[in-house]
Each structure stands twice: as structure tokens, then as C-alpha cells.
């Protein structure tokens, strides 16, 4: 028992820095926290709104037919992505149950990690897949008017392939990272 009390005394006697506490500033920061979640959601939608008009303009413009169809499919693909993020990414904005028992919080984190893992594993289906048909037609449509269509195709499709592979690789790394976190929580 003495050893236990020694440990407690040791722990409680450690020097801790005296924190400067400004209650008003803390209150303001708590309000800012809510604002930052709303801002993040807004930025996600804004990014889609900024990109979509470029493709809509191409789809309605005078570009080759194949490129116009590709642009329309890209807009549809963006719609699928935004809808998926909106539907499945929503719980990320929900706050963890900080005032409940820790076991509940750990369960919340586990559920959150599993949700993220599902989202990441399905990236080929909801992120890469919806963009590929539009991308192929969009690039192919412009290539038909290029003086060196094969060279143009090889270059642009090559760049697209590298970007998509990079996305898939990054997701694989993220999935492994999430697996590790889950294993630690479950272990």
C-alpha cells in the first residue's frame, strides 16, 4: 500500500506549468469551434460549385460532341461524389460524446474509424469510378481535334492515370493507417 501511495504522491507532486486562463477567450473559442465545422462543410460544397461550372460551360458550348458528353458525365460524376460525401461523410462533423463514459467515447471512435475505413475502401466505386467515363470522353473529344491525337491522348491519359493511381495509393495508405488504429482500439 505504501508503494501505491508513494506513486500517487510522486505523480501529484510533479511541477506543472501554471496555465493562463482567460474565461472570455475560452468562451469565444468554444463558439469558434462550431463555426469552423460549418466553414469546412461550406468549403467542400464551394469547391464542387467552382469546378462544376467549367464543365457545364463545356457541355453547353461548341466543343466536339464527345468532349461535351464527357463534360456532362464529369458534372454528373462530381454530383455523385458530393452526394456521397454529404451522405456518408456527415458523421465526421458530429461531435464525439465527451461528457459520457469513456467506454462510450472509445466505441464512438471505433464506429467512426470503421465508417472512415468503409468510405476509403469504397473510393474506387464512389470517387474514381464516377469520374473515369467522363474523363475518357472529355479528353478523347479534344484529342480528335488535335494535330497529333495519339501523342495528345498518351500524354493526357498518362497524367490522368498517374493522378488516379496516386489517389488509389493514398487511399490504400490511409486504409492501412485506419486498420492500425482499429487494431489498437480492439486489441
Amino acid at each position, binding site marked *: 500500500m505504501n*508503494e*501505491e501511495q*508513494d*506513486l*500517487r*504522491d*510522486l*505523480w*501529484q*507532486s*510533479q*511541477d*506543472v*506549468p*501554471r*496555465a493562463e*486562463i482567460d*474565461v*472570455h477567450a*475560452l*468562451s469565444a*473559442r*468554444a463558439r469558434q*469551434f462550431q463555426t469552423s465545422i460549418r466553414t469546412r462543410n461550406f468549403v467542400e460544397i464551394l469547391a464542387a460549385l467552382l469546378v462544376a461550372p467549367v464543365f457545364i460551360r463545356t457541355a453547353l458550348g461548341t466543343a466536339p460532341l464527345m468532349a461535351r458528353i464527357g463534360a456532362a458525365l464529369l458534372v454528373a460524376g462530381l454530383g455523385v461524389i458530393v452526394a456521397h460525401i454529404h451522405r456518408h461523410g456527415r458523421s465526421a462533423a458530429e461531435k*464525439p*460524446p*465527451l*461528457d*459520457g*463514459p*469513456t*467506454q*462510450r*467515447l*472509445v466505441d464512438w*471512435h471505433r464506429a467512426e474509424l470503421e465508417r472512415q475505413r468503409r468510405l476509403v475502401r469504397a473510393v474506387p466505386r464512389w470517387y474514381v469510378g464516377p469520374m473515369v467515363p467522363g474523363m475518357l470522353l472529355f479528353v478523347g473529344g479534344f484529342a480528335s481535334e488535335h494535330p497529333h491525337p495519339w501523342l495528345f491522348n498518351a500524354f493526357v491519359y498518362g497524367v490522368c492515370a498517374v493522378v488516379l493511381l496516386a489517389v488509389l495509393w493514398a487511399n490504400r495508405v490511409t486504409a492501412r*493507417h485506419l486498420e*492500425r*488504429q482499429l487494431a*489498437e*482500439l480492439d*486489441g
Partner: protein
Amino acid sequence: MTDEERTRLQEVLDQFGPALQRLARSYEENPSLRADLVQEIYVALVRALPTFEARCSLRTFVYRVAHNVGASHAVRATSRRARWVDIEDLDDEPVDVAPAADVGLDRRRRVDRLARLIHQLKPIDRQLTLLFLEGLRTEDMAEITGLSATHVTTKLSRIRAALTRRMGGGS
């Protein structure tokens, strides 16, 4: 935030400030990130205190919120931290048995060693260890963690044995 809520927050921070600092130390080793974590805990308390309904003691409530913020911080910091281990698999590096001539230095070394051991633990084990070191009762620990009192007792006996074995005697 009402004046009453501000006053209550100030009281909480005055009463539990040092314990919250120690708690933050056990969840974050890096001093500057630790200062951020302390602020994060305070902000969580600002947001949570208005929901406090005295169903449990204020101490239980404050520890719950603070530990949950710390645990969330630790879960998110996977890339910066070492892997968590089971209490039985804690680092068995021997304690520096040669006491320093300076008693204060010796004490600091032992506190550092204790903090390093705590850092390796999974959230619930870490929380129980900290609550034990802060001197809370088993019933309070059960209420804070959401585990049954029997489960807490079992885990605590393993934690106590592991800590005393690795920290050795003398302080």
C-alpha cells in the same frame, strides 16, 4: 455564456487546473502540443458545463470530459505516437536505480519514467492509471469510464502490480 456559467468555469479551472495539466501530460509528450491539448480540454469544459445536471459529482464530470478529450487526442495522434501496449507488455526497461545526488532531479526522473509508462497504455487502461494516481475511488472510476466496478477492480489490480514492479521502490 452567462455570468453564472463563467463563474462556475473559473471555479472548475481553479480547482482542477493542476490535475488537468497532469492529465494532459499523460496524453501528449510534446510540450507545445500539450499546451494546445490543455486549451482543447478547457474549451470542451466550456461547452460541456452547461449540460452538467449534478447526476454525478462535478469532479466525475470534469474528469470524464477531460479524459475523453485526451483519449480523442491520443487516438488522432497515431502517426506521432508509439504503439499502445497491454498493461502486461509495458516497457520493462529497468528503473535508474542509482539515485541522483539532487533529490529534486531524482524525483523528476521518476515522474518522467512514470509518464513514459502511462504513455504506452491504451485509453481505458491509461485513464484508470491516471484516476488511480489522482486518488479517485473505484466507484468514481467506474462512473467515469463506464466499466463495471468489478471490471475496474480487476484492471486496477493489474495496473497497480505493473506500475509498482516497473517503478520499483523509493521515491
